[in-house]
């Protein structure tokens, strides 16, 4: 089972490191990366300051394993990496990192989109938006 959950925001250095690790794989010709960044939305005049993520981790890990297997069936990919934050991620911080690599570019965009949508709809992760005034509301995915 691959490690998916990271405490807090995912740093640009972590992403650079993941990219660098693929430079020795000479069959890869195309990478596609999706990053979700916490937006400073305003709701009724209050600005989102951070999102607090929790998860049913054991179930999430099982589901993510299934999603990864299904993606390898569906698309011609060399590698798939999925990372998601737990705990607090401030506005501007990256909370999801999906990284797909393949010999050729054709399918990487669709594969990334499919994976991101699967994570959003099928994996038990829960985000709570924390406002400047310390009020909060549970995030709803659209």
């Amino acid at each position, binding site marked *: 089972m691959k490690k998916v959950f990271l405490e807090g925001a995912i740093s640009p250095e972590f992403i650079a490191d993941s990219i660098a690790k693929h430079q020795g794989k000479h069959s890869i010709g195309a990478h596609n990366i999706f990053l*979700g960044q916490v937006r400073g939305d305003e709701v009724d005049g209050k600005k989102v300051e951070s999102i607090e*993520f*929790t*998860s*049913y981790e*054991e*179930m999430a890990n*099982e589901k993510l394993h299934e999603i990864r297997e299904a993606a390898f069936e569906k698309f011609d990919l060399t590698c798939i990496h999925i990372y*998601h934050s737990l705990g607090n991620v401030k506005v501007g911080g990256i*909370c*999801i990192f999906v990284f797909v690599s393949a010999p050729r570019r054709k399918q990487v965009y669709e594969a990334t989109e499919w994976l*991101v949508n699967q*994570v*959003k*709809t*099928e*994996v*038990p*992760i*829960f*985000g*709570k938006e924390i406002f400047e005034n310390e009020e909060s509301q*549970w*995030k*709803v*995915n659209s």
Partner: protein
Amino acid sequence: MIQVKYFGLIAEAANCNSENVAEENKTLSQILSDLTSRHQLGDYNFQVAVNKKIVSNLSDHVLSDGDEIAFLPPFSGG
């Protein structure tokens, strides 16, 4: 014993993250109905997982000792 876990909005509403309940030969729908009324979750939207799998047909489900039930509000990762 059945272990019950609550997540996100539901954990907050129930004011509880997890608890154990005796099964006493109850079906899944009976246990859910007990817990929903005890924690006043009737107005909330949630799915139920048993042993980490979503159960879509709650009425047919038979529980065994050691099963883990989870109350899952809408997912909002990403």
